[in-house]
């Protein structure tokens, strides 16, 4: 059964969203904690 073409786009969207959340938080935490 052929896969819907949107499948790949949704996968990319999920991976990008997760990367943005993790990189964003790590950067924010680093920036917040670099001077204490």
């Amino acid at each position: 059964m052929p896969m819907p073409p949107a499948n790949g786009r949704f996968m990319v969207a999920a991976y990008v969203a997760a990367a943005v959340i993790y990189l964003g938080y790590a950067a924010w935490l680093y920036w917040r904690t670099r001077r204490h």
Partner: protein
Amino acid sequence: MTAIPSAERALRRGGILMTVGLVLVAGVYVRALAFTPEEATQGLAQKIFYIHAPSAWVAFLACGIVGVCSLLYLFLKEPRLDLLAAASAEVGTVFLTTVLVTGPIWGKTIWGAWWTWDARLTLTLFLWFVCLGYLVLRGAVDEPGRRARYSAVLGILGALLVPFIHVSVLLFRTLHPQPVVLQTSRPQLPNSMLVTLLLSFAVFTLFFVGLLVRRYAWARLAEARAEREADDADASR
């Protein structure tokens, strides 16, 4: 004041661990996207699993740490337990947010709907609200002892949701799939997919530990600085 050098060391180590964790997460991305076979029925969308499930595991681990530290705090009144619970709650909320963002994207491709009021999804959303409430509560109470006591109670209640979320797919009729790894029989995944998944679990856990150590060490330093400032203010009176 002996706590400060150890906290400063932990801050540096947390930073290193966090950076190594990020690099390894990038490695998991490469392995999952380029070197793991496509699943036969779901196609590429199934690969969301390799970030969704480990994020959920880490979020639940973080909530477990909050629950245990909160419970111990109520008995021992040790401020470091409160600081560790707060650090774990903040980092756990980030992982839980990823679960709630990647889950609906996967759901839309497989179920045809972004969201359904299924038991597991609904309970996870409630846990996210409890986590947000915990963080807001900590920001709203100034007195440290009272803040720690109130947030410990909320932290325990939040952690109690975690086992319910895990068994919700077994107790209720839900759309969400049942566990594929944490089950009594053999995992229902081919080896190549299982290796990617287990690798992802390990790497996300390491990344979480890095973030947690850094966040906790920073909280200890901030507390020591606040105590020093209070002592200086008393001395100058």
